[in-house]
């Protein structure tokens, strides 16, 4: 196998060598046969290329680039303007919100004050009324106390005189009876009042 490869390599090297030595032309570039033709066609094609590019194609490309640049600048400008506008609007909006907040707070505070005042007034008047009522009631109680004592003593005197009359069958001097009843009731009251 190795032998075959080696032989193949050697053979191919020989072939290469023979193929390359077969033609000894040198550089075709230095052969002046077609120089004039090459110059002529170079001038023709390059000249046409230059004319068409510079007259028709390159101005269009530069024009395109310019318009794109200007359009982009314009767009950026409008975008800036719109952004400023939106910023202004946002500021206005914020201001409105703040104003309304302050207003609402003020309104709320004043209403609360009103309600508190109202409540205070009502409470004060109620308290006054209650005090009045209490005073009245106390007076009434006092009066009742007084009158009730008098009534009680009266009733006591009457009942006792009636009882005595029934028991003895005779009228007794009312003043002496009342003195006794008063004395007794005073003692009772003292017992009640703990004096």
């Amino acid at each position, binding site marked *: 196998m190795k032998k075959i490869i080696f032989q193949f*390599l050697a053979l191919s090297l020989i072939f*290469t060598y023979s*193929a390359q030595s*077969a033609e000894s032309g040198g550089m075709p570039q230095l052969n002046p046969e077609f120089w*004039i033709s090459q110059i*002529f*066609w170079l001038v023709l094609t*390059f000249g046409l*290329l230059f004319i068409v590019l510079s007259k028709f194609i390159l101005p269009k490309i530069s024009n395109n680039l310019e318009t794109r640049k200007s359009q982009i600048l314009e767009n950026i400008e409008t975008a800036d303007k719109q952004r400023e506008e939106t910023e202004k609007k946002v500021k206005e909006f914020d201001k409105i919100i703040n104003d309304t907040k302050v207003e609402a707070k003020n309104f709320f505070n004043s209403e609360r004050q009103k309600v508190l005042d109202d409540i205070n007034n009502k409470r004060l008047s109620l308290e006054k009324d209650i005090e009045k009522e209490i005073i009245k009631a106390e007076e009434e109680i006092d009066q009742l106390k007084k009158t009730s004592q008098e009534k009680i003593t009266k009733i006591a005197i009457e009942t006792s005189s009636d009882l005595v009359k029934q028991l003895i069958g005779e009228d007794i001097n009312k003043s002496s009876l009342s003195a006794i009843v008063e004395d007794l009731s005073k003692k009772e009251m003292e017992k009640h009042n703990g004096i």
Partner: protein
Amino acid sequence: MAANPMYQFNVYRIGPEIKINNIDISFTNASLFMVISSLAILIIFNLGTKRSIIPNKIQLLAELSYSFISKMISDTAGSKAKPYFSFIFSLFMFVLFCNMFGMIPYSFTVTSHIIVTFVLAAFIFIGVTIIGFIKHGLGYLKLFVPSGVPMVLLPLIVVIEIISYLSRPISLSVRLFANMMAGHTMMKVFGGFVVSLGIVGGWLPLGFSVALTGLEILVAFLQAYVFAILTCIYLNDALNLHH
């Protein structure tokens, strides 16, 4: 024989022999590829001129190359070189497309012929010299007298400067021609190895050939770029006299 690596540079007549005043200007394979390159450039860039705000791919290609070359010119030669934009654009595109079409197997590389590159370089050289003399008059000769050189050295420096100026078209043309020719010859040699070494030993030169194809495509672009940028630099010397 096709195995000769220089065979690919042969120029041969296509069609009838055309003679004007005994001068042979027949249509050859070189002319064919010049025409093909020019037509390809025109078709591609004409497709790229549609007026749309959002460009499609071809339009993007055309506009990117436009701004690429415009930037190259303004970087190297300044704003004064704007009138020469379309010439440098055509030059770059022509050289680039000729180089690139040469990369197609069995095609012909126009720029691998010294006469073609030399005509281009000579035209640039003469044009730049004329522009220099129009812009600065005889003051353009100050280009050969650098400032700040001691008087003793001046004769020598002036001679060197003149030689370097006169060798510009040669260096410009030989650079492009030699690069293209060397690359294509090398690829052909490796291709010949692939054929002769066959299925057993041909893989290594085939790999080389593939790698060289990539390198040659890079060289094709790079040489077109170098050609254009050197033109810009020469133009810069003529437009803005620094010395």
